[in-house]
């Protein structure tokens, strides 16, 4: 049977109608990984086939970013500090997936501790972008984006602190959804910025993202910050006939690569053609989100990484790479005596301003539309040219990250180099349904310009 390029939804139907067994499907992806992973370095650890539960996603193979604790399976967050760490417990996200019948193909490469936007800070070497293996896949969920893009898994789980789902999804031509902060439990996710971290799906289609979110969303007693709001039926919300108002922030259309700008403009035309209203809006300059994010996230990193002492598990603190050290030191500095008010508290106050700013715009529009990142995939090593590389790549992602609002990146065409360009929809708190609805309408209208089929031809 020809499995290549089938969505998670299609594979689910094939399994449900017994056209393929979960074991056959699993071995199909295992063989593909065996063939292509040595080149892409997208998986760090492969997982063997096991029995699975019966549920909504029975027998569906999914790849998991290596910062989710998987019981009995090595989990490193791509950091040598955790080189030999075998978690004695399961993260809530992976537990919920297992209960829904999912099988894990393997653990995917990422920037070490999720510190980065290119997967090049991984202690296990960079992941290559399947579109062009001389380029980076983006990050930090670069391994997850690459396995979906090259079809080494039909879908993957990523996590985002600021852009780590949306930016690699955009650079690899796939769908990446960052849910509202607290919508998905962080329990068992190796903590980076605890007030930002959001697990989310990275998929080939919008429906696949909705289906995975349905399984992983919801209150978790083991994550006190997880949201108590009821989880709606996302696929129902996705398919409702709706006419929406989109806001395009002027401040987010500046400094874009020309091809990216052109594709976003063309996408706005598609939205108008679908009968939606598109209007210009104004948001706080994203440079302030960068600063708030930098201060709060570094502070949280310095606190979260303080636990790695090599006594209870893992290696000692000399095993940290320079990026982690740099972040811990900045966080330690801003939290130190006499500086807390000037940095941390100030940043928390501006976080309030950013939230109010977004809420003001959401009084007027259903969704905000922008590019997820100002450029398409850069060459490996090119990040060294940018002093604020991660922040520059994620400048358009940081407002939603700081505010904790949801957003999606979907493919919207190719640039002049033949690389995928992403489009971002940002929504109000807990309004994943509207985001999915708009993304699904866009997908139905354009089939994402067949971007993904084009990019993975050589992996057929």
């Amino acid at each position, binding site marked *: 049977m020809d499995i290549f390029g089938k969505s998670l939804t299609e594979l689910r139907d094939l399994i449900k109608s017994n056209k393929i067994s979960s074991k056959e499907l699993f071995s199909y992806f295992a063989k593909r990984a065996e063939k292509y992973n040595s080149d892409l370095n997208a998986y760090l650890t492969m997982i063997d086939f096991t029995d699975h539960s019966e549920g909504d996603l029975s027998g569906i193979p999914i790849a998991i970013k290596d910062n989710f604790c998987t019981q009995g399976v090595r989990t490193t967050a791509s950091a040598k500090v955790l080189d030999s760490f075998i978690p*004695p*417990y399961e993260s809530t996200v992976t537990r919920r997936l297992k209960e829904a019948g999912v099988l894990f193909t393997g653990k995917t490469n990422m920037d070490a501790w999720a510190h980065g936007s290119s997967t090049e800070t991984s202690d296990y070497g960079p992941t290559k972008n399947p579109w062009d293996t001389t380029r980076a896949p983006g990050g930090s969920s670069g391994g997850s984006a690459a396995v979906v893009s090259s079809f080494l898994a039909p879908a993957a789980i990523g996590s985002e602190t600021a852009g780590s789902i949306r930016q690699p999804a955009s650079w690899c031509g796939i769908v990446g959804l960052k849910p509202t902060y607290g919508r998905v439990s962080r329990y068992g996710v190796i903590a980076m910025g605890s007030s930002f971290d959001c697990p989310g799906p990275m998929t080939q289609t919008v429906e696949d993202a909705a289906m995975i979110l349905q399984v992983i969303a919801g209150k978790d007693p083991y994550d006190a910050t997880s949201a108590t709001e009821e989880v709606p039926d996302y696929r129902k919300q996705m398919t409702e006939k709706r006419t929406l108002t989109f806001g395009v922030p002027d401040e987010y259309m500046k400094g874009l690569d020309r091809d990216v700008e052109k594709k976003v403009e063309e996408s706005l035309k598609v939205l108008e053609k679908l009968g939606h209203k598109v209007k210009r809006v104004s948001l706080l300059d994203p440079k*302030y989100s960068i600063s708030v994010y930098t201060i709060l996230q570094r502070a949280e990193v310095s606190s979260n990484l303080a636990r790695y002492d090599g006594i209870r598990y893992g290696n000692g603190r000399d095993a940290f790479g320079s990026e982690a050290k740099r972040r811990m030191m900045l966080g330690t500095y801003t939290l130190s005596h006499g500086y807390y008010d000037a*940095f941390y508290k100030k940043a928390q106050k501006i976080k309030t301003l950013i939230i109010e700013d977004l809420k003001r715009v959401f009084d007027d529009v259903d969704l905000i539309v922008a590019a997820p990142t100002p450029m398409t995939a850069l060459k490996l090593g090119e990040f060294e040219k940018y002093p604020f590389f991660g922040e520059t790549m994620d400048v358009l992602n940081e407002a939603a990250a700081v505010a904790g609002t949801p957003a999606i990146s979907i493919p919207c065409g190719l640039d002049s180099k033949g690389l995928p360009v992403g489009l971002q929809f940002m929504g109000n708190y807990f309004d994943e349904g509207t985001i999915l609805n708009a993304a699904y309408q866009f997908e139905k209208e354009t089939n994402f310009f067949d971007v993904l089929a084009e990019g993975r031809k050589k992996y057929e």
Partner: protein
Amino acid sequence: MSKTGDLTKKDVLHIAKLANLQIQDANIEMYRTQLEETINYVENLDELDTSNVEPTSHSTRLSNIYFEDGTKNSRQFTQKEALQNAKSTKKSMFVVKRIME
């Protein structure tokens, strides 16, 4: 230490000590420059007036989340599980460096 980005090598070593990190002499200047660069950047926040603004920690303002009394904690590890990743154990305990004479 001053806020205006004139970090010294001594500051860098002090921060590294607080963070329990070993920094090689050859790298002190690199970290000093990078930290200074970042601190200078984030000072753009001073352009915004926050005199009447409350700080936000949890973005959707959740607070006071408790377990019900008597909730069974199924997260609890067995001693074996808790120790399974430790490099050095003795009599089912973690071995740590002596901190008092």
